[in-house]
């Protein structure tokens, strides 16, 4: 059933971004000849009309990039708010599926939209300022070698970073979902209450994370300090590995708590009026 839900959520995503993603790439292509042209030999000598055209196309490009990012955020919020807590919820919550499947489908679709938007933006930069393919292919082994010489596992480090970004993205989406689910528990001013819930969750989680960190440090006192220094002396990689690992665990724990309460509210306290 999750696959079927995803099918419709992805179709909805396709409709939403059908114009904006290709528009970014087309504008990047235009800017390759205008803005990118400035970096070529003799390219700066384009006269006032050329400068104006270059400035204008570059401005439009950035406006569309900004619109894509705003649209992605709006999409993540709206697919949950309208799709599960608004009128569309009358259809979604009467389908023979489990509540967690509804949430996971929105989450996967929202994250996919976010990842594609970022990839489209990165690709557009590569289109505007072309990097020779050979340089791009050489870059990664070089990076791994450089990291390896510092004692960092050049293969695992980028992977850990990627995992941290993904887990943080899941946490952010679920943070928004939980805030909307809490807001929907109120009879009136649901949007305002969702914003208040978002800020409150943010405050509580920041407080808990910082308290946990300081309690941990003060509890173990010098032992921790010695441990940290020892590890730093041992390897930079060890410190990186521990820090990123802890951040991934913290983010995943927060995401799990957000998901648990969102699912519980929608399953037990759903109130579509």
């Amino acid at each position, binding site marked *: *059933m999750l696959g*079927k839900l995803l*099918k*419709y959520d992805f*179709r*909805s995503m396709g*409709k*939403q971004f059908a114009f904006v993603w290709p528009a970014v790439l087309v504008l990047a292509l235009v800017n390759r000849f205008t803005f990118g042209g400035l970096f070529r030999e003799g390219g700066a000598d384009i006269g006032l009309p050329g400068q104006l055209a270059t400035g204008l196309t570059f401005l439009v490009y950035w406006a569309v990039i900004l619109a894509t990012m705003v649209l992605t955020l709006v999409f993540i919020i709206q697919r949950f708010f309208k*799709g599960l807590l608004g*009128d*569309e*919820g*009358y*259809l979604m*919550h*009467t*389908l*023979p*599926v*489990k509540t967690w499947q509804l949430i996971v489908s929105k989450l996967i679709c929202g994250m996919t939209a976010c990842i594609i938007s970022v990839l489209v933006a990165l690709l557009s930069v590569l289109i505007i300022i072309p990097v020779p393919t050979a340089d791009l292919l050489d870059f990664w082994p070089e990076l791994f070698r450089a990291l390896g010489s510092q004692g960092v596992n050049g293969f695992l480090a980028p992977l850990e970073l990627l995992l941290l970004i993904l887990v943080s993205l899941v946490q952010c989406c679920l943070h928004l979902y939980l805030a909307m689910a809490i807001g929907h528990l109120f*009879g009136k001013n649901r949007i305002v209450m969702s914003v208040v819930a978002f800020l409150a969750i943010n405050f509580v989680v920041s407080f808990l994370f910082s308290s946990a960190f300081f309690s941990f440090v003060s509890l173990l006192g010098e032992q921790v300090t010695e441990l940290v220094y020892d590890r730093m002396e041992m390897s930079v990689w060890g410190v990186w590995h521990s820090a990123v690992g802890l951040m991934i665990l913290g983010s995943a724990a927060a995401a799990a708590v957000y998901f648990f309460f969102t699912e519980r509210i929608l399953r*037990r*306290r*759903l*109130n*579509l*009026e």
Partner: protein
Amino acid sequence: MSEYLVTCIGLTKRYGQKEALSKISLQLAPGRIIGLLGPNGSGKTTLIKLLCGLLQPTEGSITVDNNPVGPHSKAVISYLPDKMYYADWMRVSDLFDLFADFYADFDRERAENMCLSLGISPSDRIKTMSKGTKEKVQLVLVMARRAKLYLLDEPIAGVDPAAREFIMNTILTNYDEKASVLISTHLISDVEPVLDEAIFLREGQVVLHDSADALREREGKSLDALFRDVFRAQIYGGGTL
């Protein structure tokens, strides 16, 4: 295994301090057309939403087809809400795809034929349709299912008499005779001829529940006249049942 399709025991729903439904106990048998009758605010929509899982009861329990409200009960209930639930981007064919994907009992051919008779093309965009056409598409989707329980929330409210007749015909000619249909309305005269059973709701409580024939015989008047008597008494603060 209960012989009843729907069983509600001690069902209560509160919105804050306000009690929308108060300790309702009901049993609905299969193969019946049941009128859920009451004035605005009597709890009809709340009861229907509780049955299809859009609201959660404050107290009490519900079973549909011997299961609590959940994926199984949702698979056997065909629900017509009192509002539009479409996503803007959809065409009629997208909705047919969706219903065919999620409901094993959805008869696509029947839905297409019903649309054809209404002059609606599967490629029509929902966004460009009039409110009346959107309502008809929603009715087609609901009635093209071979469900065990149809929950129709005010299907004839706010439409002209011709559309009302069309809606009643669609319901009568398309529901499975082994299934039950629960129609909520305050327009009694339009549904009275087809009702097997009637439930009168007043201020969140069931004040009458019996077969339509038994009610007419016992009270010596039509359901429409009985409804007027019962709820006139409420409005003017007097009268007994």
